[in-house]
Every structure is written in structure tokens, then in C-alpha cells.
């Protein structure tokens, strides 16, 4: 008995399981393309946050003179977003190659196209303000996000080098009170009103960086430069759980 005859017999007797319905196949394809779209979008948004960090103008004004570009790349937060973006981009390429006719395209070509598309969308996300909102949401809803900000804060909180970071408790025409990440109060004197000309209006609770003549013993100093905190630090509370442990 040929295989065809055996099949004919099995179909007649109902021995063969019925074919998988068409709607299941359509659903599978839809799930695959949905996964691809979501992963690619997440890769683009992550790339956007990474670009947004790197292009922070506040970060550039003070740190540019004293830190190498590589330092900015190695900050934990931008690096985190770069890794997330890269991983999601690779996942998107992998999903694409698993699509019904994905094998027809060379993986290298798909990789290059995907990376260019994700980078372009990332730049768009960074310039449209989406990256800003994503960072705010991450700070609010992911507690571990503060841990990732720690290396940056430690780098900025360096009294020996005359740099302090913290939230404004109060300020007047000639004094400024800050609480640093450990919750310690610092009092600064302001000799020139020029130092208060910040990009954003100064108000209690705002995160600022100060460069000046600092005395660690008395927790006092004289302000030379005052700037808003850079991205990735400005949203974190002045007394961080990490520093209180």
C-alpha cells in the first residue's frame, strides 16, 4: 500500500488529526509582527533616551572641560539605555529572520537597515521629548533606577574638587542652602548675582550642581558656578535611600 493510499484510508476513517485552522496561523503571524514592532519601538525609544543623555547641554557646560567624552559614555545610565537599545535591536532582527519569508534577506543587510531605522527613530524620540518622559517614568516606577544613577551622583559630589550636588532648601540674595545626597546641609555664600542666572528658574527643591570654594569641615563654601543637575540625576530625591543605608 502506497503512502498516498494509507493517507486516503486515514482521512476516511478520521485517524488523522484535522489541519490547524487558518485563523490560528493568522494569529501566530500577527503575534510575531506585533512582537517585532514592540521590540523595535522599544529599541528606538531606548536609543532616544541614550541620545538624549549624550546631548544634554547642561552636562556639557561644566563637565566638558574636565572629563573625557568616554567618561560620559561610561556613565551607568546612558550605558544602560544603550545596552537595552542594542539588545532590543538584535531581538528585532532575530524576530524578523523568523518571519515567514525573513530567510530571503541576508542577516547583515537586515541588521544594518534595522540599526539605521532604530537610530533615526531614536533621534526623533530624543528631540520630540519622548525620551524625557520615558526617563521620568523610569525614575518614578522603577526603584532600581536610582541605583543606576549612583555613579553619576558620586562623580558630581566631590567636595575635594569643589563640586557639590544637591537640592535647594532655601536661597536668598546672598546665601544658598543645599541638602546633599546624604541629607547633609551645606551653606553657600553668593557674591555675584550672575551665578544665579540659570537656564531654569531657581526654586526650592530644584536639583543643582555647584562649583566653588568648598570647606568640607564646616559644610560651607562660596559659589562660583551654579547649574541645574544634568539628565539622569535631576529627578532623584536629595536624600537617596542608597546613601542612608
Amino acid at each position: 500500500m502506497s503512502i498516498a493510499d494509507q493517507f486516503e484510508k486515514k482521512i476516511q476513517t478520521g485517524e488523522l488529526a484535522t489541519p490547524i485552522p487558518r485563523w490560528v496561523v493568522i494569529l501566530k503571524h500577527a503575534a510575531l509582527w506585533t512582537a517585532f514592532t514592540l521590540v523595535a519601538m522599544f529599541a528606538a525609544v531606548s536609543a532616544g533616551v541614550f541620545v538624549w543623555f549624550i546631548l544634554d547641554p547642561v552636562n556639557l557646560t561644566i563637565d566638558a572641560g574636565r572629563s573625557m567624552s568616554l567618561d560620559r559614555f561610561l556613565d551607568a545610565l546612558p550605558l544602560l539605555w544603550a545596552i537595552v537599545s542594542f539588545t532590543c535591536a538584535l531581538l528585532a532582527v532575530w524576530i524578523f529572520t523568523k518571519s515567514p519569508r525573513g530567510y530571503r534577506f541576508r542577516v547583515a543587510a537586515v541588521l544594518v537597515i534595522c540599526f539605521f531605522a532604530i537610530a533615526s527613530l531614536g533621534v526623533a524620540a530624543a528631540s520630540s521629548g519622548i525620551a524625557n518622559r520615558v526617563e521620568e517614568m523610569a525614575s518614578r516606577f522603577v526603584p532600581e533606577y536610582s541605583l543606576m544613577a549612583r555613579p553619576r551622583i558620586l562623580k558630581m559630589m566631590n567636595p575635594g574638587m569643589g563640586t557639590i550636588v544637591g537640592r535647594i532648601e532655601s536661597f536668598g540674595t546672598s546665601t544658598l542652602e543645599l541638602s546633599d545626597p546624604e541629607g547633609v546641609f551645606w551653606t553657600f555664600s553668593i557674591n555675584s548675582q550672575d551665578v544665579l542666572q540659570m537656564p531654569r528658574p531657581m526654586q526650592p527643591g530644584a536639583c543643582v550642581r555647584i562649583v566653588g570654594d568648598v570647606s568640607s569641615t564646616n559644610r560651607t563654601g562660596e559659589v562660583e558656578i551654579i547649574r541645574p543637575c544634568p539628565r539622569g540625576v535631576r529627578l532623584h530625591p536629595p536624600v537617596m535611600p542608597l546613601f542612608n543605608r
Partner: protein
Amino acid sequence: MIVPMPLVDYQKNTDEELASIVPTDHRAFVPLVRRYESKLLAYIRRISGFQKEDAEDILQDAFVDAYRHIAGFDPHLKFSSWIYRIVHNRTISAYRKHKSSLNNVSIDDEDMGFERLLSAKEESQSLVESSLNSKVIKQILDKLPPRDKEVLVLAYIEEKSYEEMSDILQAPIGTVGTWIRRARQKFAKLGDEYPNLIR
């Protein structure tokens, strides 16, 4: 008691048309099995060297797979490419399980595909009548890595186009071309070791 199927004439339907009606008319799968049964059985034996019984088991499983997933058949492909892909994948996984028990490529002596392979090796059109050639080519194919053997069998014995091979092996057309070129080079190199090979 088995009720005989009513006679429906599927002869005029193409493979792709039959595949599209199988989900609603299960009997339409039988003529597809008839059309491909012998070709695919020979293909399994060519690339794996399995005995006929083992090859039939693999083919039967592959047909059950194809029947179950017929709704997933991509109408943009040729049905032959799709069914070859299923059979190919089944054969390769069975081959990997039983690799140690295999020794040589199993092919009928009168298979004209060998002559095509030989003429491709020498880039000439000389056809060889001697069965000696077939035996030698079997030995050469058996010495080649599985991927090289697969592409040579598909290209010269099954006479599949690059596009069809791309769909069967699930690789870009350019990659298939590279595989064939490399396999031909290896085949030619091994062929030099056989002075009895008539060219």
C-alpha cells in the same frame, strides 16, 4: 467500515490550488501525496542514505506535518518548495539522530542526475553511460559534508532553481549560490582522486 471516497477529479488543479482547498476538503491532500510521494522518497534517500523503510517513515511523518500545517502554506511559494522544505527538515533531524549508522548515499544506478552533476563538475556536456560513474559519484557525495551534498543533490539531481533552493533551505539566494559554488569546488577536488571517473 470504510466508506469509499466519492470520485472527485483533482487532476486539473495545480498543487497550490489543492493546498488551498485542503483545510475545507481534506481529501484534496491525497492527490498531492500521490504527486510527490516517489520524488520525495528518492530525495530523502539521496541526501541521507536511509534504507527505503526508514525513508518511508520519514516521508509519512513529513506528510502528516504538512497536512496538519497546510493552512500555514504560504501561497507566494511553490507548493513543491514548501513540501521539500518540510521533508528536508525532517530528514536532516532524522539524519542527525542516526548519523553513525549511515554509510553511503542511496541512489538508483540509472539516476540521470549523476551525469548532470558530472557535467557541472567539468563544465562540459559529456554524458556518461557507465554505471561506474554513478558509483564513484555516490562515493564522492558521501565524502562531502551534509550541506554540500544537499545543495548538489537539489541543484543537479532534483534540478531545483536557486529560488526554489532558497525556499527549501531557508537561506538567501546569494547564500545558496555561494554554497553551490563551494560544493562544486569540493566535488571537483575529490573527483581528481578518482582516475576511473569518466569525464
